[in-house]
């Protein structure tokens, strides 16, 4: 059922003018004038190439831009693209824009796109980040084809990344999601993804909308909703996603959007995650991972220093969250010098699981629990960087896989602390 409150009268009018569509591409924006045009052109080119005979629409859900972003989206001409495109598009490519609020909210933006897709009865829907300036037109068919033609319900991307990029995903979000829900989805928190009408409607109907107060992290919730709801998932290799294109370089906000949502999901999905062990691979188009190795500047010393300071200063906070054994072990490794320092995978997994259990019990403000994990994450990242300093792509992949297996092996420990904490 379409959620009336999300759709403004103006948007409903625009959607009625468009009529039913086969494919909808959603573009949530907020002050993205500098990057949005090439993204819109890539979407248009991708739609012309991949779906020339389908009825398609681009829906821009804007969170109160003041730099003219919506005008750039709706005004982007496709005439040049049509000329350069050898085939012939039979349908009109609609492009509409709506302002859902004066302040951005990833959740409301996504819900607006989902509600529009439901109203237009779109069979397949993709969401694209307005900051993906390196996006290639073929990303669109790679995301949408499995949903539109092969009946998959959720398509998440796989990007070519530097080995030291996306470390929160590779060291926590991916391994923990995989261990909990049993599916090896490499990018559960994706800025580009596609989904079916079935999944969109399910999410709209069941989204509790209260996982976190900042209204973000809805992308991860959609992925978890697909897994726990038994929907068919798929991965598509897209290409290079550079560091600058990923939103959220700041650690704590990034943790709120990902780890906060993941921890919140545990309570609601207890039956789903507590009943099985191990994990299954997800059907994938193209490479399952591609890692680049060029050298980048990372301040390792600062990471270690922030870990050591965090363990010392936050002791009263950690006493309420961690078991005495884990805390003692963290305090021990915090005294080690840079050369001897090692934050073992097992200790990291135990730390994360104890944080998750404390989060469920709300031993203190949940936001404080997430903030408390940040310095410990920095310590773990220091070890990851040291371990993989001169590793090849295969070795990095092997190390991530071994961490994932550690998360899976220690899952009974999560249940144990979960039950104890309860």
């Amino acid at each position, binding site marked *: 059922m379409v959620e009336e409150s999300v759709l403004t009268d103006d948007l409903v009018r625009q959607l009625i003018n468009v009529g039913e569509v086969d494919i909808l591409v959603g573009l949530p924006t907020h002050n993205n004038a500098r990057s949005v045009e090439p993204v819109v052109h890539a979407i248009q080119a991708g739609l012309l190439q991949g779906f020339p005979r389908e009825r398609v629409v681009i829906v821009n859900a804007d969170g109160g831009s003041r730099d003219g972003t919506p005008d750039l989206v709706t005004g982007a001409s496709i005439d040049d693209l049509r000329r350069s495109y050898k085939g012939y598009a039979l349908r009109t490519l609609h492009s509409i824009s709506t302002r859902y609020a004066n302040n951005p909210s990833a959740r409301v933006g996504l819900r607006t796109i989902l509600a529009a897709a439901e109203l237009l009865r779109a069979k397949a829907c993709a969401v694209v980040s307005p900051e993906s300036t390196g996006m290639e037109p073929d990303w669109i068919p790679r995301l949408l084809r499995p949903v539109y033609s092969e009946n998959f319900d959720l398509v998440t991307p796989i990007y070519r990344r530097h080995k030291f*990029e996306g470390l929160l995903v590779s060291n926590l979000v991916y391994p923990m999601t995989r261990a909990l829900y049993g599916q090896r989805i490499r990018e559960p928190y994706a800025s580009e993804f596609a989904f079916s009408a079935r999944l969109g409607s399910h999410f709209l109907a069941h989204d509790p909308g209260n996982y976190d107060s900042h209204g973000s992290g809805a992308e991860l919730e959609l992925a978890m909703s697909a897994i726990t709801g038994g929907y068919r998932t798929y991965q598509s290799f897209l290409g290079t996603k550079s560091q600058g294109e990923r939103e*959220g*370089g700041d*650690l704590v906000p990034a943790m709120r959007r990902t780890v906060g949502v993941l921890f919140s999901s545990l309570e609601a999905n207890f039956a789903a995650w507590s009943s099985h062990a191990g994990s299954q691979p997800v059907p994938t188009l193209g490479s399952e991972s591609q890692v680049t190795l060029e050298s980048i500047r*990372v301040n390792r010393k600062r990471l270690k220093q922030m870990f050591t300071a965090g363990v010392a*200063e936050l002791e009263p906070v950690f006493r309420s969250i961690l078991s005495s054994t884990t805390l003692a072990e963290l305090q021990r490794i915090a005294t080690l010098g840079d050369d001897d320092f090692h934050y073992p995978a097992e200790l990291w997994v135990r730390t994360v699981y104890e944080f998750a259990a404390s989060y469920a019990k709300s031993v203190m403000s949940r936001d404080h629990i997430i903030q408390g994990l940040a*310095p410990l994450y920095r310590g773990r990242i220091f070890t990851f960087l040291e371990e993989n300093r001169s590793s090849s792509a295969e070795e990095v992949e092997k190390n991530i896989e071994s961490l994932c297996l550690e998360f899976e092996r220690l899952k009974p420990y999560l249940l144990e602390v979960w039950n104890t904490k309860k």
Partner: protein
Amino acid sequence: MRELIWRELTQAGEEIIREFAHLLPRLIEMLIITLVGWVIAIALKWILRSVLRLAKFDQLSENSGASQLLNKAALPSSTELLSRFIFWVAWLGFILLGVSVLGIGGLQAHISRFFLFLPRVFLALFIIFFGLLAASFFSRATLLAAVNSNLPSPRLLSTSIRTLLIIFVVSMAFEELGLAEQTVLLAFGIAFGAAMLSLAIAFGMGGRDLARQFLEKRLVREVKSEKEDEPSPL
């Protein structure tokens, strides 16, 4: 003479008996009120304890730091303490109500003053509890933010925030109770002003390098390059 004494004694005894007979129903009334009050107070205590347990009040108290204070003072849990407090306030109220039935002159005024004072006590306790909760929350928030921003002396910052808030809350509670209002306000003003002044002097004079470092971190673009040196989390 003997007869006179006997008559006077008999008269006095009769008067005492008459007075006692006059007082007896009131005494019985007082005992009944006290007994009924005890039953009601027990019921109130039981209801409050259940409600507080359902609302996880002990957890809230632990978060506020109130539980630690109670533990140090070898007192029971906040739920138990509040339940017992309500029991005694309710029962004492009924006892005083019963005593007022006796009609002893002068006592009425004290009793009504006691009942008028009760809401202020409740409000003061309310202010202290939620004040401690706020102090604990904001000091922890400061500690976490300072650690994650790599600021120097996070615990000192956090403790300062906590202490200032507690002083503020206690002075508010005293003001509500009407106890030494002027003294408390003056003491708070002096303590707060002195703390701010000493912090400013310490930060500006004693910690010139620290101040420069702090301001550079806040204002100069160097901080950006530091952030760029941290690997992208997403």
